[in-house]
C-alpha cells in the first residue's frame, strides 16, 4: 500500500509519525504549561491521523485532524478557565498515586504488546485501488445507516445534556447556591438525603480562601471556603 513514492518512503513516514505521536503523547503529562499539554495531545492526534491517511483511510485521518483541532482548542480554553496556573509559570505537579499509575501504564503497554506479538492475525490487507471513501459513504448511508443515525442522535442528546448540565439554572434553583430539593411540607427540611458536613472539597476556590477571600463570606453556599483546603493538592516530587 505504498501511497507516497513506494513502500520504503511510506515506512519512513510511518515511523516518523509514530515516534511523533508517542513522544508528544508523553509530553502531554510532562509539561508544566497546560496549553502546551493540550496542543501536544493535538499533535499526537494529528500524527495518528497522518498514519490513518498512510493506511488509505483518507476520510478518517483527515476528519481526525479536523475534529481534534477543534476539540483541543475547546480543551485548551477550559484549561485556561479552570486552572489556576495554566501557563505553568509556577511549576507544580498535580499528580496522585504516581508510582501506581506508572506501573499501570507500563503494564497496559506490555500486556497489550505481548498479546499483539503472540496472536496470529489474519492477513487480508486492503486491496489496491479500492475507493475507501466511497465505501465509507455507501456504508454510512446504506447498510449501517441505523448505527450512523444513532450516533447522530447520541450527539444531539449529548449537546442537550451538556447544555443542561452546565447551565446555571437547575431544577431546584441556581446551581452555585447549593441546590436543595424542596421540603416535604412548606418551609420544612429539604427532602431526600441529608447534607453531610465534610471537608471533602477544596481545590481552586478553596485556595482562594487562603489569601484573599478569607474575609469574603459566601452566603447561601454549602461550601465553606475556610474548610475548603482540607484536602488541597500538595506538591509532589
Amino acid at each position: 500500500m505504498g501511497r507516497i513514492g513506494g513502500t520504503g518512503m511510506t515506512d519512513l513516514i510511518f515511523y516518523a509519525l509514530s515516534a511523533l505521536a508517542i513522544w508528544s503523547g508523553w509530553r502531554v503529562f510532562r509539561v508544566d504549561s497546560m496549553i502546551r499539554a493540550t496542543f501536544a495531545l493535538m499533535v499526537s492526534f494529528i500524527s495518528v491521523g497522518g498514519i490513518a491517511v498512510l493506511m488509505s483511510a483518507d476520510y478518517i485521518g483527515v476528519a481526525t485532524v479536523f475534529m481534534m483541532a477543534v476539540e483541543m482548542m475547546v480543551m485548551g480554553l477550559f484549561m485556561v478557565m479552570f486552572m489556576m496556573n495554566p501557563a505553568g509559570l509556577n511549576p507544580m505537579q498535580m499528580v496522585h498515586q504516581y508510582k501506581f499509575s506508572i506501573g499501570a501504564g507500563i503494564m497496559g503497554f506490555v500486556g497489550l504488546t505481548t498479546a499483539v506479538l503472540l496472536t496470529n492475525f489474519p492477513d487480508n490487507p486492503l486491496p489496491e485501488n479500492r475507493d475507501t471513501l466511497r465505501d465509507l459513504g455507501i456504508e454510512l448511508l446504506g447498510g449501517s445507516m441505523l448505527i450512523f443515525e444513532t450516533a447522530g442522535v447520541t450527539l444531539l442528546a449529548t449537546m442537550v445534556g451538556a447544555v443542561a448540565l452546565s447551565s446555571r439554572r437547575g431544577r431546584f434553583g441556581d446551581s452555585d447556591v447549593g441546590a436543595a430539593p424542596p421540603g416535604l411540607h412548606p418551609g420544612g427540611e429539604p427532602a431526600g438525603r441529608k447534607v453531610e458536613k465534610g471537608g471533602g472539597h477544596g481545590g481552586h476556590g478553596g485556595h482562594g480562601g487562603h489569601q484573599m477571600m478569607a474575609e469574603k463570606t459566601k452566603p447561601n453556599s454549602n461550601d465553606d471556603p475556610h474548610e475548603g483546603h482540607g484536602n488541597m493538592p500538595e506538591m509532589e516530587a
Partner: protein
Amino acid sequence: MTLTAILIVAAALFGIGLFGALSQKSFVMLMMGLEMMLNGTLLAAVGFWAFTLEGAPKGQLLAVLVMAVMAVELAIGFALVVAVYRKRQADVIEGIGTMKQ
C-alpha cells in the same frame, strides 16, 4: 508498516493514556488521559481495518464511532466539570471526595 507495528504504537498510546488518566489530579488533565486512550483505540481500529478486513467498510465505521465517542466524552466531561465547579469551585478530583449533594 505492518499490523504489528501499528498495534504496538497503539498500545504505547493506550499505556500513556492510562498513566495519565490514573495519575492526574485535575479533571481536564484526566480527560486528556482518556482521550489519549481513545487515540490508541482509533489507531488500532484503523490498523485492523486496513490489514485484516480486506477493506470491509464496517471497519471504517468503527473508527467513525470511536470519534463520536470522543466527542461525547469531551462534551459531557466538560459539562460535568462546569457543573462541579459551579457547585464546589473544585477543579481537582480530590475536590469531590463525595458526590452527595
